[in-house]
């Protein structure tokens, strides 16, 4: 071939640095200044690595699955030897990991300001959560895919339980019990695919399936597909298991929910693309995924309308908007996949804006229920401005980023001859607007109610208490709103990153 194939230097760093940081801050346990220094410097290092890294592969056995130039190292003689554990860092991975690193830096900074004690372990958990999401989005073999999903769901339970309320411990227990079922299903599914194809590398398996006409023929593939869909649903919080995930989002600290929702968006995107690449030959595969996504969108947004607490409204809206991401992916066309990936990027950004505002509301010390707190607009107008921008972006109002991706999704649905889905996407964005403005009006804009004493400790206030909103939260809000406006005005900045991935998934699915 034309050039020597070498491992990329940045991929091991992106995984090893957060793990080492987690171990280190866990050992330091309660030395606040040391933990702050280490955690913040390592999250900024991760951001820098993700920004400057070139694209490339990492092979653990020194043998590439698919050579970047277009060749392929298929050989019957070495197949029993080849594990081909493989990571790939490309344009999709870069944009998602950069955004996640930025959020990690902000979340770590905020949590060092907010938590009073014992935050070494907690920050360690946040770093490991980052690792699991990074593994999932870069992975190109079944082994690491499985490890990433399992390890990620344990960490979700850990982060949720750290918030210390009874409801969050219950949510963590339920989530962990279900992780046993989904992990078992996923292991069986991967073993079945391995038994059919003999390869643990995803590119190899897809190549084998297309060469040997397995697609649509074998009943075993349907079983594998079903189990893989089950773990996808569980990891991303889609329709039948969405109560588990919405409890998780609602019961964690809002700043931790930023990383939790980022992790599940990354899982949805990565596993969705893998399922699409593996099983797009199966009849009904895309239809099943589409049906799950549509049900998730509608259920999530209806549940969000019924909530009276800002945290829980956001929790169900996150569920509903994950449905928007997967609708795009499961349409299976280039436009659909671009729309889904862009929606994932935008979703992470505007939901983070809203969650940061929710975190700031908690510091006023009266919880986030629309009955217990009101009239924040008077005391902090900037926060009100930020939450309104976030809500407008979430409901797809033109100059902001949500509009661009929903436009692409609607066009993709119409292009596939599915106007019903376009209508449902419009309905979801309108209902998102109503659900958010119900909370925002009551909490921020409604004049302060005399019967409610601001500052009265509620049930939530035992963990957070009355404390001033840290400056870094406003900095984070400013940066994220800046990104939201820039992506809304110049969507091509992100679309250039996503275009190539979508083309590869549709036309050459065996290339990661």
């Amino acid at each position, binding site marked *: 071939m034309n050039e020597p194939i070498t491992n990329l230097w940045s991929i091991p760093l992106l995984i090893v640095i957060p793990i080492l940081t987690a171990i280190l801050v866990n050992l330091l346990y309660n030395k606040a200044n040391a933990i702050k220094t280490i955690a913040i410097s390592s999250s900024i290092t991760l951001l820098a690595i993700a920004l400057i890294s070139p694209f490339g592969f990492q092979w653990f056995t020194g043998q590439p699955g698919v050579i970047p130039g277009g060749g392929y190292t298929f050989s019957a003689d070495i197949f029993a030897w080849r594990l081909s554990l493989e990571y790939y860092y490309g344009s999709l991975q870069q944009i998602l990991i950069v955004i996640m690193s930025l959020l990690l830096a902000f979340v770590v900074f905020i949590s060092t300001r907010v938590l009073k004690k014992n935050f070494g372990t907690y920050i360690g958990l946040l770093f490991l959560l980052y690792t699991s999401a990074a593994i999932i989005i870069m992975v190109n073999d079944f082994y690491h895919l499985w490890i990433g999903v399992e390890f990620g769901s344990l960490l979700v339970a850990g982060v949720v339980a750290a918030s210390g309320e009874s409801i969050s411990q219950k949510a963590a*227990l339920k989530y962990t019990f279900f992780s046993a079922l989904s*992990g078992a299903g996923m292991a069986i599914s991967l073993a079945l695919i391995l038994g059919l194809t003999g390869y643990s590398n995803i590119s190899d398996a897809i190549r084998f399936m297309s060469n040997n006409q397995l697609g649509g023929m074998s009943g075993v593939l349907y079983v594998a597909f079903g189990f893989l869909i089950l773990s996808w649903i569980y990891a991303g919080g889609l329709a039948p298991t969405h109560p588990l995930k919405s409890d998780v989002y609602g019961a964690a600290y809002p700043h931790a929910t930023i990383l939790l929702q980022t992790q599940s968006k990354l899982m949805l995107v990565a596993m969705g693309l893998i399922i699409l690449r593996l099983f797009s030959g199966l009849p009904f595969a895309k239809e099943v995924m589409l049906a799950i996504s549509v049900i998730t969108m509608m259920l999530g947004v209806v549940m969000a309308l019924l909530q009276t607490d800002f945290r829980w409204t956001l929790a169900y809206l996150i569920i509903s908007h994950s449905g928007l991401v997967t609708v795009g992916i499961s349409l299976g066309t280039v436009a659909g996949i671009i729309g889904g990936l862009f929606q994932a990027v935008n979703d992470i950004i505007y939901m983070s804006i809203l969650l940061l505002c929710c975190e700031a509301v908690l510091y006023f010390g009266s919880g986030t229920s629309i009955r217990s707190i009101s009239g924040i607009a008077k005391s902090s107008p900037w926060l009100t401005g930020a939450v309104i921008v976030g809500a407008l972006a979430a409901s797809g109002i033109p100059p902001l980023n949500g509009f661009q991706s929903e436009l692409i999704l609607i066009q993709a649905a119409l292009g596939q001859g599915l106007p019903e889905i376009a209508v449902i996407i419009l309905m979801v964005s309108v209902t998102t607007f109503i659900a958010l403005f119900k909370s925002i009006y009551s909490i921020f804009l409604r004049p302060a109610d005399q019967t409610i004493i601001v500052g009265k400790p509620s049930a939530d206030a035992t963990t957070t208490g009355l404390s001033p909103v840290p400056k870094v939260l406003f900095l984070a809000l400013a940066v994220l709103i800046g990104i939201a406006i820039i992506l809304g005005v110049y969507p091509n900045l992100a679309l250039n990153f996503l275009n190539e991935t979508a083309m590869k998934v549709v036309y050459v699915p065996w290339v990661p």
Partner: protein
Amino acid sequence: MIEITLQLLSFIAAAILVIVGLTGMLFLDNLIKKIISFTLLSDGVNLALVSLGYVEGGIASILTPGSSVVDFPYNAILIFGPGIVLTNIVIGVSTTAILVALTIVLYKRYGTLKASKVLKGERK
């Protein structure tokens, strides 16, 4: 008449473990019993994965000084199953530890191990 091989036997054992574990996780009310059922379920999945890769009359896929490197790939059992199982055992231990820790915390709060009482939905 199907010949009963070791692989078939271990599939049967795996099926029994999975069914027993699943039944226990879904229908038993005690949290500790649910955790024990979870360990049984993951044991069953491990056994299924290992027996998928079994080769009749093969060798363990561990290179020893005396073994022939050329024949090794054709005789050894498929390594992916054992590889994933080794991780699954470790992940099973950590999951169990998290479940037990959460159970202890919730027991201190509610004073009971009944899942129907502890996990009852409570929402403001």
